[in-house]
């Protein structure tokens, strides 16, 4: 069990003078599940991108099964038996599972016998407990199933070392259970798994050994059985994590948002919201709990004015804004932190300044008579970067170079700058580490205390129980119940959103 399959020694990599990896060491044994734990921006993803040949290290060496290697591309890495499943899946929506799996393989006959391939891939998936229909087309699959296809792709390429980047970020609790059992299956079959994560619960549940990265350095490697959760948290963050978020009830009876009987279609023309009614009050956080795909995305788009409603009405601060333009809705005081911060939230090639003013560029202090006041914009952006502790190479550098956590902070900084009366946040902590998650929670609570009504969509029950004043459960496009945390049991809520109860953090 103690045979080294991978050794990364003294890996250093810097981007634009910022050290992302600083003399990092990583040793992984064959057949183990190794967790790479660290906060956002700790350098986990960079390290794995170096391992899979996406980046070239400035210095350091990689030894696989005792042989020193250098990779020029992911293809090289796969040839050496290393495959990675990224957070954003790389699948072709209109092709079947099998077609996606064999895509790019060279040793397939020019004339495909698709039946044989379906069969082979079906058998293959059963072997690892990755139940999936090889004939299904990708667009028909849930996020969890898509992830399984990605894993299947790697296994089919006879990868011995599989890396998963934040694999549970997009999964429902049940899907996480399935994933973990598949991973254990693979480890038993002699595959090695590296799982990149910042979730302590998961590490304690799945990992055999743990390497912690902090600030670009590898700070410790230990066996899971030798350590407790609290110790691990301290090593990862390098400081004590505040345990309980201070919460005050400032909720008033006034409704900021009133949705009544909203009906809307999804992109495929099927009914996604079927008569949804819900209210958000001034100074409250209303949590929306539910499994992804039950209308959350469409709900956000309806509120933002990006998706037409077929029936029902939407009132903001008592004013009817049903089917109004996005601009009118922004002017009514609605701020939105969308689910997809890369695609809908930020323009990746724009710099920090330009992204900050997306909704305020017309304001009198930002522009006069149609001309942007760059001097003011720059000063203001520099202040915001400091206030929100956003790590960036400068306000003129494009946001695509920033980590996910910092992009999210930037997005919150922008959305809250206008003192909104309603803030809609969809999965704001998805993919963020403990530190950034904490920062986002603080922002949400302080916004609430200033009287903003907040609609918080999340799959993380613990997060909702911690933050929300009321929790509404969404199921198949309707609110199926509203509960007050503390008065309803977790099991009750979990049952309503179709998951089981979970251990409560802190």
């Amino acid at each position, binding site marked *: 069990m103690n045979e080294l399959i991978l050794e990364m020694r003294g890996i250093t990599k810097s981007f634009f003078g910022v050290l992302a990896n600083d003399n990092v060491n990583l040793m992984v044994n064959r057949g183990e599940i190794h967790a790479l734990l660290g906060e956002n921006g700790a350098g986990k993803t960079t390290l794995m991108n170096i391992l899979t040949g996406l980046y070239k290290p400035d210095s350091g060496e990689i030894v696989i099964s005792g042989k020193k290697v250098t990779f020029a591309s992911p293809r090289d890495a796969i040839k050496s038996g290393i495959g990675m499943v990224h957070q954003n899946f790389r699948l072709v929506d209109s092709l079947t599972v099998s077609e996606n799996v064999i895509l790019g393989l060279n040793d397939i006959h020019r004339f495909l016998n698709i039946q044989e391939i379906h069969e082979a891939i079906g058998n293959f998936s059963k072997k690892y407990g990755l139940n999936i229909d090889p004939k299904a087309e990708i667009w028909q699959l849930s996020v969890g199933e898509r992830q399984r296809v990605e894993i299947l792709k790697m296994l089919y390429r006879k990868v011995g070392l599989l890396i998963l980047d934040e694999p549970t970020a997009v999964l429902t609790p049940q899907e996480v259970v399935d994933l973990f059992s598949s991973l254990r299956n693979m480890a038993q079959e002699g595959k090695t798994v590296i799982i990149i994560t910042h979730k302590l619960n998961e590490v304690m549940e799945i990992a055999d050994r743990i390497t912690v990265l902090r600030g670009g350095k590898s700070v410790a490697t230990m066996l899971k059985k030798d350590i407790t959760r609290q110790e691990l948290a301290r090593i990862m963050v390098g400081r004590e994590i505040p345990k309980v978020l201070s919460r005050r009830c400032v909720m008033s009876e006034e409704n900021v948002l009133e949705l009544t009987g909203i009906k809307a279609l999804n992109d495929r023309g099927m009914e996604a919201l079927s008569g949804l009614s819900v209210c958000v009050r001034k100074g409250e956080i209303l949590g929306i709990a539910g499994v992804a795909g039950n209308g959350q995305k469409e709900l956000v788009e309806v509120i933002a004015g990006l998706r037409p409603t077929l029936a029902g009405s939407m009132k903001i601060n008592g004013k009817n804004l049903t089917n109004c*333009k996005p601009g009118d809705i*922004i002017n009514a005081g609605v701020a939105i932190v969308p689910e997809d911060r890369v695609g809908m939230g930020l*323009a990746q090639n724009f710099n920090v300044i330009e992204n900050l003013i997306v909704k305020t560029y017309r304001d009198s202090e930002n522009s006069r008579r149609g001309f942007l006041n760059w001097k003011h914009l720059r000063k203001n952006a520099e202040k915001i970067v400091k206030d929100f502790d956003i790590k960036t190479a400068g306000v003129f550098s494009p946001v695509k170079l920033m980590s996910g956590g910092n992009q999210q902070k930037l997005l919150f900084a922008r959305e809250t700058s206008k003192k909104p009366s309603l803030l809609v946040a969809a999965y704001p902590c998805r993919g963020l580490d403990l530190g950034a998650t904490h920062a986002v929670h603080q922002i949400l609570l302080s916004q609430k205390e200033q009287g903003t009504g907040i609609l918080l969509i999340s799959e993380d029950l613990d997060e909702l129980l911690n933050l929300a004043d009321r929790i509404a459960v969404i199921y198949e496009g309707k609110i199926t119940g509203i509960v007050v945390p503390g008065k309803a049991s977790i099991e009750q809520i979990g049952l309503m959103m179709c998951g089981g109860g979970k251990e409560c953090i802190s």
Partner: protein
Amino acid sequence: MYILDKLNEGKCIRFEKRLSVPPVTYLIVPVVSVILVLLLGGLFLALLGYNPVEIYGILLNGAFGNTYNFTETIVHAIPLMLTGLGVSLAFKMGLWNIGAEGQLYFGAFMATGVALFFHDLPTPLMLTLVLTAGFLGGALWGFVPAALKVFIGVNETLTTLLLNYVAILWVDYFIFGPWKDPKGFLPYSKVFPQSAMLPVYPGTRIHAGLILAILAAIILWIIIWKTTWGYEIRLIGENTQVARTAGINIAKNMLLVMIISGGLAGLAGMGEVCGIIGRLQHNISPGYGYTAIIIAWLSRLNPLVILLVAIIFGGLNNGGYALQMVGLPESIVTMLQGAILLFVLGGDILTQYRIKIHRRGCGV
């Protein structure tokens, strides 16, 4: 990525994505591209039995060799500047306006209409009118595809391209038919009154269109980088979703941008008929509207750079006439222009990727 993987398959030369692009690359790549084009063209000329050095000498001399040749180069550069600026604005917003040629023709057509039918007007009024008419003609030809896109969702790449042929045939119809000069045999319109002619720099054919182009470039630069409207245009081009979420009216901006984009090309057409020829005729443009696309990309959509690149391409066009005198087809120049774009686009890959050569084997 798949294509890259394919390219990389089993080769000792590999493409790697660059994380950061050193700014100097943006200068080196076009320069190296042009040198490679000259080498390729030279090879081609040598195969035809010409001395490449001599031919390039003639080309260069024909373009920039003396004051007269240089002024003629500027004359050719003016429509290239205006159309180049026009398409670059549309490109900045992610609209594929490849209809500058048609917009140029329609601008010329409208300006001609004004010049022919209001021939008694005093010069200042007349000039204002032909200018406006030229702009509006091009603007109309830009507005039509924009409206089709905004209201019915028709792809603008196709409509702008097809409308080029419509505009050219439209002009042909008028010069072969209703507007044909009754005293002439050739398909020309009547000669414009002097009041409709743009002022010319004495002793040359450089007309006031040059001032229009320079002004347009400066104004466009200011709009794009200094104004909220330019910010909207860039944001839409960069990420339409974010722009929509921000409440920016995308339809309105599309219409406006295409009106200006077409209007600038229309001014180029007006410049040709009111600045140089003095009447409407067949073939007023040797494909300026298409060359404009090359110029816009080579200049990376920077309005001020477009002015310079347009002069180089104007030189290529003008030098091409000198080549005809030694018996070479003028299309040599078209070939060189095409090759430049090809090489720069190829070079573009090298700004995003770097080539890595593995000397010893291709193993990992």
